[in-house]
């Protein structure tokens, strides 16, 4: 290839390469949901808590009590509208008895929380009350619902931001649960 030919092909390929790179960046960037902020907690120990149970306010549940089990922490509230979307799925999951789901009743009036569960069904092994949202801050909760998958050693393995979907459950969470339960 002569110098001239090389120059000519360069003249074509350079803008094309820039265009392709630009398209790739936009493709990835625009197809991402800006509301899904990756959690820095993945792979780190789940923040410890000890909170009163929703249905037995005199009893508490602590993260230490759950060492040795794989469990889901579902952040919910009676005022949370999108929680209603995922709730039937949680009820179904509880019936299947695959993995215990603990509920964190986030910034909620306990009476409202109990009434809401009475109305929509209670899928939780236990719910705990985070009245002022302090534990929510420790978990980096910035919207409800959120769901954390925590392994036997108490390490956060996955975080679902927003309502659980059948796809997320089937393709991500349940396979991980099975793997971690081994």
């Amino acid at each position, binding site marked *: 290839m002569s110098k001239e030919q090389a120059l000519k092909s360069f003249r074509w390929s350079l803008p094309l390469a820039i265009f392709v790179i630009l398209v790739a960046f936009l493709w990835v960037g625009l197809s991402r949901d*800006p*509301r899904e*902020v*990756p*959690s*820095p*907690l993945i792979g780190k120990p789940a923040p410890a808590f000890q909170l009163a149970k929703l249905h037995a306010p005199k009893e508490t549940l602590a993260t230490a009590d759950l060492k040795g089990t794989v469990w889901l922490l579902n952040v919910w509230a009676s005022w949370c509208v999108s929680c209603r979307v995922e709730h039937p799925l949680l009820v179904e999951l509880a019936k299947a008895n695959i993995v215990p789901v603990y509920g964190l009743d986030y*910034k909620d009036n306990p009476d409202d929380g109990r009434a809401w569960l009475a109305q929509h069904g209670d899928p939780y092994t236990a719910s705990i009350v985070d009245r*002022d*949202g302090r534990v*929510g*801050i*420790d*978990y*980096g909760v*910035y*919207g409800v619902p959120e769901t954390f998958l925590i392994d036997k050693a108490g390490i956060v393995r996955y975080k679902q931001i927003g309502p659980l979907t059948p796809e997320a459950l089937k393709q991500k969470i349940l396979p991980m649960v099975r793997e971690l339960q081994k």
Partner: protein
Amino acid sequence: MIARAAIAAIAALLLAAAAAAATKMDPVPPSGENATGMSALDVRLKRLETELRCLVCQNQTLADSNAGLADDLRREVRALALAGKSDDDIKGYLVARYGDFVLYKPPVKPITWILWFGPFALLAGGGAIWWVVLRRRARAATAGDAAGEARARALMDDSDHDNGSGP
């Protein structure tokens, strides 16, 4: 001419908007703010809150947001400041929970290199291409001049010769 005026007008508008945005985003409180009765802690918290993002509303700072979570985080930041934590400690506390996204100014680390240095790399690349093109054009122009000069000289030589051969 009209198009040029329109472009100038748009550019002026954009500049004005950018200037307005810049003054709005100014994280340093005006020096007179202390006189309005804000304590040193309040000033410090205010400054800190303008550097932190409200995760619910995303495009607002913690200081600007009325969201419930922003309230909680402001309370948390204040409690940490009262407990004697430094600004870096407080930011670290929030980053550990919410990630770098909580900071309006992302830290410089390998994953943010493109973000920080990309624009400069693009500018340098564009500058390099511009320089190469200019140099090539200049060379082509001088080469053209040289050829023209040679042709002119040849013509002149010819006319000299004609003149010389005349009576």
